[in-house]
């Protein structure tokens, strides 16, 4: 599912997820752990064919994501269970 969110200021992993959770409160705690703010282990972050899962939360996202030309993706592990 693809959605658009508006981000004020620097467009980073953290600020995009903050905006996403503000727009869709049900997602709080489901992408980032409430307590630590860390990415949940079975989810990965991608943008512009790059794996951003291990980047720091305040890493700036590519211009293509900022402009909306490319998505910032939150992808669940494909493994079964």
């Amino acid at each position, binding site marked *: 599912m693809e959605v658009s969110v508006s981000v004020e200021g620097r467009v980073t992993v953290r600020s995009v997820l903050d905006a996403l959770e503000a727009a869709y409160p*049900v997602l*709080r*705690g*489901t*992408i980032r*752990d*409430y*307590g630590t703010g860390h990415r*949940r282990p*079975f*989810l990965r972050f991608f943008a512009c064919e790059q794996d951003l899962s291990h980047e720091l939360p305040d890493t700036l996202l590519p211009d293509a994501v900022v402009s909306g030309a490319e998505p910032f993706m939150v992808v*669940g*592990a494909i493994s079964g*269970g």
Partner: protein
Amino acid sequence: MSGVRVLVGTRKGAFVLTSDGKRQKWDVSGPHFGGWEIYHVKGSPVDPNRLYASQSSGWFGQVMQRSSDGGKTWEPVGNKFEYDGVPGTHQWYDGTPHPWEFKRVWHLEPSLTDPDTVYAGAEDAALFKSTDAGQTWQELSGLRGHGSGSRWTPGAGGMCLHTILLDPVNRARMFIAISAAGAFRTDDAGKTWQPINQGLRSQHIPDPTAEVGHCVHRIAMHRSRPNVLFMQKHWDVMRTDDGGDSWREVSGNLPTDFGFVIDVNAHQPDTVYVVPIKSDSEHYPPDGKLRVYRSKTGGNEWEALSNGLPQKDCYVNVLRDAMAVDALDKCGVYFGTTGGQVYASADEGDNWAPIVRDLPAVVSVEVQTLT
């Protein structure tokens, strides 16, 4: 017109099964929240249309759901479960200290008096309470903080607070059970707690009669006698007549006293049901025969109930929250299996039939009596 609504939590969604008072023909709704583990669904005794569900997955963690129309539609509510203060550590499998980490809600217990108040039992073991219909949750931290928490250890399934019993007479009293810490009681509405494990004996722990460390699988109460509780432990069926101050074994003539579920007939406080499971590693019925055992004497004397249940090649398990009773006349008894069957008896266990056979593995079963 009376009827029942059976709320089934499975590994891959929730199902709502409804029938009239005859309990012969069933409508099946679901899967709700398809693909998600639904550990528990339970309704408010005050407003039967108010249901709460625990929805979780390894990918996305915990979501809480609420229905106000008996399970037809649902809305997500608050899912923030934060341990109060500095959570500290409990014991890990290897005896080392391990930080408390929230994983999921195992059990929901709506208040007996207010549809917007509900308790949640969590893993790692803790008790939470909401008074705003699930929007926000606060830990009743007196439980973890009463003194023994650092010595609690998980069982193989995780350190879960899986049973919450609300005393219908003394509203300040509650009982909870944790695998593998034991049973606990509060007499002041959750502010302070004490272990109630005197009389339990667990061979697999260093001190078999320790104050905490017993793997209690389930406790059950009849509302007319809140001082009398029945317990299915990791081996042994137990009974207390003094609110948990002391326990005695009532396994009697059971073929094996290992199991997970235990429940009490809605109208007969000394009629108790268990499903014996072969052993702690062989989680299936003895001899491949699925049998419910019933005692009409409050334990010790048990009879096998098997009419309508598979008596050959049956190797399913029945998990700790997967049995329930209704309050119709005669009392209906229900249980779900890891093989995806939900069985019902409309005559106190004398005869059984499957409501459904092919659900995902059943984790929990609750029943609402609708009048």
